[in-house]
């Protein structure tokens, strides 16, 4: 695998010696705070008391194998899944039980896995749906301009049906659609799924730019540890529904356990 392409955006900004999620050393209030979150699907318990924080403008990666509970955690935060217990605070207000659409209005936008888009609508129409929470013609035009600036290929394809896009372009479209709502926190679920390494690198480069230029905080589930740690400040390793370890990108890269469990072949071949 050629996934060691990361590093070009090397950003281990914070490296605290802390290992617990409750550590917000800077004293600043975290933008998102998840405490002791329990979630189940039917009778199956998926998350067992997860703690997590995302700082304003921060980039946090959720690492872990498929089925570890990363998607469930994102779904619970965005309101798609109902927690059994625990609290979720966004900008110091509890958001448990809120509808996903009202969270979008508050600036928390979830880009789910498998890039669900409106296949029969054009690229531009897809983006306009994303602008539902944006009021005013000029504000929408500005948002569209900004989306096209980050994803110029979408401008070229703006009149095409979304179904005709390539996988990478579809991923760009769902991120661009989320951008139309002017988010302050973006939840990304496996943006790299099924995409060629070069495309993945492009997409992550743009995500990094969005984070830096728009100040959008990012919480992403990404099984590809190499690429995730290349842009994240902080990583949470999730295993069978609990947080196994927390650390800065550099710490996690150096961690023997993470290396063995997740960097897998990538680490072995270097």
């Amino acid at each position, binding site marked *: 695998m050629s996934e060691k392409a990361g590093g070009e955006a090397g950003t281990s900004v914070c490296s605290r010696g802390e290992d617990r999620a409750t550590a917000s050393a800077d004293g600043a209030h975290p933008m998102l705070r998840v405490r002791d979150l329990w979630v189940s699907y039917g009778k199956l318990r998926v998350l067992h008391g997860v703690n997590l924080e995302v700082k304003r403008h921060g980039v946090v990666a959720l690492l872990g194998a498929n089925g570890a509970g990363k998607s469930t955690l994102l779904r619970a935060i*965005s309101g*798609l899944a109902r927690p059994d217990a625990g609290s979720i605070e966004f900008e110091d207000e509890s958001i448990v039980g809120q*509808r*996903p*659409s*009202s969270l*979008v*209005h508050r600036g928390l*936008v*979830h*880009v*789910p896995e498998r890039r*669900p*888009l*409106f*296949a*029969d*609508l054009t690229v531009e*129409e*897809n983006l*306009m*749906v*994303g602008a*539902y*929470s944006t009021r005013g013609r000029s504000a929408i035009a500005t948002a569209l301009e900004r989306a096209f600036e980050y994803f110029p290929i979408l401008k070229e394809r703006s009149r095409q049906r979304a179904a005709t896009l390539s996988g990478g372009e579809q991923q760009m479209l769902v991120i661009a*659609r*989320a951008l*139309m*709502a002017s988010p302050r926190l973006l939840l990304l679920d496996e943006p790299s799924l099924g995409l060629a390494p070069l495309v993945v690198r492009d997409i992550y480069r743009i995500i990094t730019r969005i984070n830096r230029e728009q100040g959008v905080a990012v919480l992403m589930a990404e099984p590809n540890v190499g690429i995730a740690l290349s842009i994240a400040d902080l990583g949470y390793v999730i295993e069978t529904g609990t947080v196994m370890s927390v650390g800065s990108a550099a710490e996690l890269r150096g961690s023997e356990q993470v290396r063995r469990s997740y960097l897998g072949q990538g680490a072995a071949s270097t």
Partner: protein
Amino acid sequence: MTQLLQQTITGALTGSVYAVVGLGLVVIAQATEIINFGQAAMGTFVTFIAWSLLLRLPYPAGFLLGTIVAFVVGALVERLVIRMVPEKERTGLNPLIVTLGLLFVFYGLTVGIYGGQPHPFPQPFAGPPIDLHGVHIGRASLYLFGVSLALVLALYLLFRHTRLGLVLRATAANRTAAELAGVPTDRMMMLAWGLGIACAGVAGMLLAQLLSLTPNMMDVVLVFAFAAAVVGGLDSMVGTLVGGVLLGVLQSLTGVYLGNVVRWLHLPFNIAQPQQYRDLIALVVIVVLLIVRPQGLFGRKRVVKL
């Protein structure tokens, strides 16, 4: 020749109202994936309300108010009934049974409140039929056609050329994705039901002035509306319009010419009263179409979702 033309035109005019009811079905089915069997009963109920309003109000005001009442009834039914069906069961058999229940509830309400006897419904353009070189066109039919066409056009513009319509289409296509894009999809469902039942109410008021107002005046119309919607593949507005008009023509022609056709084909039976077979044709169309082209004449072939 004149008779053929006469029957075709009469059929086409009547057929437009099937399209309106069918369109209401399509709007609801698209947004909520539910086929509303209560459509006709709800439309009739609202028409009775409009009738009681029209005893005191001038026609345009009563008509407009009737349409608004229909919208509100539709939205309320979504909010108070449909939404109570657990989300997991929304696409299965349960909502179907629920809408069948709506049929009986609204039929019962109509008969209970207004009684079973027919009432004359005010006609805005009463008068003798218009004579076009021997072809007679009733004013009530013409009015029905005009309003139906206007309504179809208005809905088309709403769905194709406004942001609200775009959001409604997005909700219909993928509800979760729409919700995550910030669209309050529960409100969109209410809106879709409001629009759908508004169509049924308008159709009811148009039919009542053509025929007369009875609690079951729309029963057969619902079947034709289904047929029209199926022609459009349950998702095409243009297809539903064409389907409705086509069915109206077919129905009208069957009523007059079926006997001749049977004789001409030397089939081993006689049709003494072709009028009795008029409504059969809609059912035949539904069955044949569902077998031959399940996606409808106009519906796009669905890609199986994984």
